[in-house]
């Protein structure tokens, strides 16, 4: 349902309900007022007749035949007020013209009563005149009273029936006007091309829509940044893949045209090495993207076990380079981690892999743990001071011309960032590099 229709229905129903209650209220109070006024009239008229009888201004027929009482006013309500005078013995002494044939009420004492005479309901006031031995009854028809009340209500309902549609139309049009800024925003959004992530056009915005608008602008900005980063990354990755491809092609050509077996064998070895490196590059690209996608989780992590696992994983690599991998992290102490263990695994694994690659033959790589800090130490040449600030950027490699993809530290750094921790690379004295993974405080 559209917001406009929804608001319209709410407003129309609310207006209708308020009108209806107002009518009910007016009807009720009109009825009460009419009853009060007409009751007073009945009583007054009855007392008047009774006092006229006492003053002998109206003569009572001695023979007991009814006399006519010239009581009634004129107009619409003619014949509606009726008067009867009965003797206490129960004979009709006199009555007004048009009074019903039967006794108006069976009630005896002075006071109001209601009765049905000739199929009509009457409201009657009786005055007992004990001195004259008569009862004076003055009554009017309840139907007349109802007509009075309904006349008032009809007078209200007619303008209401005319006004309500006008009011509905006014509400409908005002809602359209009121919601126009939203339509404009929706239109602006609808007409946007998928690549357009610029902020929404500036212009006056209603206060209610400002939060939505700034939230949208914020979303656009974030999307735009993410997309830019992705584009950069894709372009970068494509270029990074071209260099090993160039190496592969060159080596393949050499293998084809090599004048001797040694050159050919060497070229083929280089092809294998290049395929391995490219494979690692692709694996690390995927790992980096997995690290960046990794959502929040809660893991219990045994740092010692993690460290031992990674050492076992990288044992073949270490062996091939004759590097000793040592884990000094005690097992059996599970750490609560405010993220998935995958992230810490990725960070530590890449640091250890880097350390092994950087180590000279026969050297040692040591993983240690001190509270919330996991450290990896090697005895390689260390990260040159000039490169240290950029070392964690993607595709930034050491200057030693090694087999690195330039992604290891980028992955470790991105993973630690996701974890809420930090990767620190203290300055190296050229006698080895230390890399520290600072885990976040448990929370």
């Amino acid at each position, binding site marked *: 349902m559209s917001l406009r229709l929804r608001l319209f229905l709410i407003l129309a129903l609310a207006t209708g309900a308020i009108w209806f209650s107002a009518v009910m209220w007016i009807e009720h109070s009109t009825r009460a007022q009419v009853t009060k006024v007409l009751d007073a009239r009945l009583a007054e008229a009855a007392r008047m007749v009774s006092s006229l009888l006492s003053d002998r201004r109206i003569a009572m027929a001695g023979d007991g035949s009814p006399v006519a009482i010239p009581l009634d006013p004129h107009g619409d309500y003619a014949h509606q007020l009726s008067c009867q005078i009965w003797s206490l013995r129960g004979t009709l002494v006199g009555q007004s013209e048009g009074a019903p044939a039967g006794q108006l009420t069976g009630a005896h004492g002075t006071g109001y009563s209601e009765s049905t005479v000739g199929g009509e309901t009457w409201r009657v006031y009786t005055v007992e005149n004990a001195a004259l031995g008569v009862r004076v009854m003055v009554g009017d028809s309840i139907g007349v009273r109802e007509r009075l009340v309904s006349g008032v209500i009809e007078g209200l309902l007619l303008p209401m029936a005319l006004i309500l549609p006008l009011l509905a139309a006014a509400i409908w049009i005002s809602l359209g006007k009121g919601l126009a800024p939203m339509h404009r925003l929706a239109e602006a959004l609808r007409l946007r091309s998928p690549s357009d992530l610029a902020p929404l056009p500036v212009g006056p915005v209603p206060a209610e829509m400002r939060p939505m608008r700034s939230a949208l602008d914020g979303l656009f900005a974030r999307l735009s940044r993410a997309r830019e980063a992705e584009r950069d990354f894709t372009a970068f990755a494509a270029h990074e893949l*071209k260099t090993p491809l160039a190496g*592969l*092609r*060159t080596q393949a*050509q050499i293998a084809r045209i090599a004048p001797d077996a040694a050159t050919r064998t060497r*070229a083929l070895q280089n092809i294998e090495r290049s395929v391995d490196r490219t494979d690692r590059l692709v694996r690390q690209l995927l790992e980096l993207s997995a690290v960046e996608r990794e959502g929040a989780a809660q893991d219990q992590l045994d740092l010692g076990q993690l460290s031992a696992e990674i050492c076992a994983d990288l044992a073949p690599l270490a062996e091939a380079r004759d590097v000793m991998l040592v884990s000094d992290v005690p097992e059996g102490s599970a750490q609560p981690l405010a993220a998935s263990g995958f992230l810490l695994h990725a960070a530590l694994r890449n640091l250890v892999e880097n350390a092994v690659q950087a180590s000279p033959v026969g050297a040692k790589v040591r993983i240690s743990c001190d509270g919330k800090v996991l450290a990896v130490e090697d005895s390689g040449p260390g990260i040159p001071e000039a490169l240290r600030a950029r070392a964690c950027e993607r595709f930034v490699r050491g200057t030693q*011309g090694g087999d690195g993809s330039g992604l290891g530290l980028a992955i470790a750094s991105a993973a630690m960032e996701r974890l809420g921790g930090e990767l620190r690379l203290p300055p190296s004295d050229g006698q080895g590099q230390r890399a520290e993974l600072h885990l976040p405080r448990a929370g």
Partner: protein
Amino acid sequence: MRILIVEDDPVLSEGLSVGLGLSGFTADSVATLEDARAALAATRFAGVVLDVMLSDGSGLELLAEIRRGGSDLPVLLLTARDQVRDRIEGLDAGADDHLGKPFDLHELAARLRAILRRAEGRAASVLRWNGLELDPSRLRGEYNGAPLAFSRREFAVLHALMERPGQILSKPALEERLYGWQEEIESNTVEVHVHHLRAKLGREFIETVRGLGYRVAAEG
């Protein structure tokens, strides 16, 4: 023709060295801008194959330095970014040619030969002198109509002498063109190569200028 390769990818760098060696070049390779500066200061190269993205900076920086120093050293840029914009940037920075990765080794060698030739002020690829036609693209020659094969080093010596006919080249200058840093310079090798060349071309084709070096004899 001694070429400096500046490339930080070890497999590609080695491939370039070996591949250009097979095409008759003598190639030395370095992986960083810093090493490239040192190499250019220490040795006379005929040309440079320069990668743009290096670990310690952009190859274009080095190119700009070379051109600022007033050098016309032929430079061929290698780059993984091969958009028109990148090519224009490279050529405007003073590169003589541009090749996108991955590339064909033969094309690289041909382009290198072309920019080296132009640096020497020649356009024709085949060198001609005294009845000898030398084709650097095939490392072969034709002497008075008969095909002649040369070893890589023999060809390099002959090529060096025929680039500037009549100019005397000293033995160390020839050695510098023949051997990269990794290679041991054997004593007397230049003499040995000249000896072999004279056996193929006759004694008079290459003259020994006592105490100075060698040159090709005047045409006649």
